[in-house]
């Protein structure tokens, strides 16, 4: 009996097909890459509407000029994330969509981009304790300065390697490593500050949950 093996077409192959007008190739590429792009922008902006817009713009850019992708400089997902990142930063700069977070003070004279209005994501109320934790961490991530936030999102939330993140951000691997270290330290500080006022209910619940484990 013959063994049928699934054939996975490479991104480069699909990209070539797409360039010749193959709609199915484009659809496959889109379905393969849209998730990481969408989630990256969602984690970076906290806004599903912005994530939708930017994802669309990223793939429109690919339709317009697929030839700009250079495989020697990284993978296609990293390339698309790079486009998404640039579009998002431009948009955030233009629209000033910022995150409010209690007691957010940037160390080392870092310019804060964390005040003002922000569209918070809706958390399904299936598990109030877990959801409160998730909401708190999400807020903390959103309150990070963009250069730290993006490495935390890519490396911790999207589980990309340092190499992939460096390709997406077009920076050195050491920069990713040091920013991740700094970003996580900032996150811990923010989460600590968030818990300070009277040891709020969420923190208490979390502690209770930890004891019960």
């Amino acid at each position: 009996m013959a063994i049928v093996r699934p054939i996975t077409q490479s991104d480069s192959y699909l990209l070539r097909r797409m360039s010749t007008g193959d709609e199915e190739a484009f659809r496959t590429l889109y379905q393969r890459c849209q998730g990481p792009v969408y989630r990256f922008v969602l984690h970076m902006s906290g806004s599903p509407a912005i994530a939708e817009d930017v994802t669309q713009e990223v793939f429109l850019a690919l339709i317009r000029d697929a030839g700009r992708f250079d495989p020697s400089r990284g993978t296609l997902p990293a390339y698309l994330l790079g486009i998404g990142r640039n579009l998002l930063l431009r948009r955030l700069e233009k629209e000033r969509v910022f995150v409010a977070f209690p007691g957010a003070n940037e160390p080392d004279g870092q310019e804060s981009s964390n005040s003002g209005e922000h569209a918070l994501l809706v958390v399904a109320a299936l598990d109030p304790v877990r959801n409160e934790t998730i909401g708190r961490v999400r807020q903390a991530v959103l309150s990070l300065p963009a250069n730290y936030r993006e490495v935390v999102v890519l490396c911790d939330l999207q589980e990309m390697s340092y190499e992939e993140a460096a390709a997406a951000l077009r920076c050195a691997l050491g920069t990713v490593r040091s920013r991740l270290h700094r970003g996580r330290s900032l996150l811990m500080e923010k989460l600590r500050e968030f818990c300070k006022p009277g040891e709020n209910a969420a923190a208490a619940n979390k502690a209770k949950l930890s004891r019960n484990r």
Partner: protein
Amino acid sequence: MMNCEEFEQMAQALARDEGLDVATLESALTHADSCESCDALLEEAESLTSDLRALAAHHAAEAAPARVETRLLLAFRHRREPDLNGLERWRWSAALAIAAAVVLVLAVTGRPQALWHPGGVATAGQSGQSGRTPGMPAVVSATQQASQTAAVDDEEGADSFVPLSGTFDLDSLNEDPIVRVVLTGEDLESLGLPVGDSGDEQVVADLIIANDGTPQAIRVVSW
């Protein structure tokens, strides 16, 4: 043995389980066991890792709405259409450029003088009268054109073209450019057409020029 400062640099990598070498890992854990604040720091960093994983898992299934794919597929199709139109335009431009080159070569070499002019006529004699630069084709005025073509039915259809090439297809009439030229008896002979006794006659004709510049069919306009 590792000190607190060194441990702090290591804490996030430890909490992320980055695969530190065994010696470093042992040294860090030994330090954490003996230092309360560093132990707390490690615990906090591990808790952060856990929380971030929970956040990632919470959004793991998030994807762009289906309407984005629909819009992009429309854009993809739309994008292809202009490309095809562009190709078509390019083909026309190339054909016209070749036709113009043929006309120029004919003009320079003293062969039948022609111009690309939809409905217009250029003849050597008339050009001379209009004071054109010797050797260069000139556009005939509307009056001249009217008199020249007075006896001609401008609405002549494709049927009036006589194929000069065995491969010519009348259906391609709308694809290849038509060039109006003035031909001498010698030119007509070179095209394999019958020539009058005098041999010095001039004939105004329309030629269908293929992409490679070769005449495909002829229609006599006046003689």
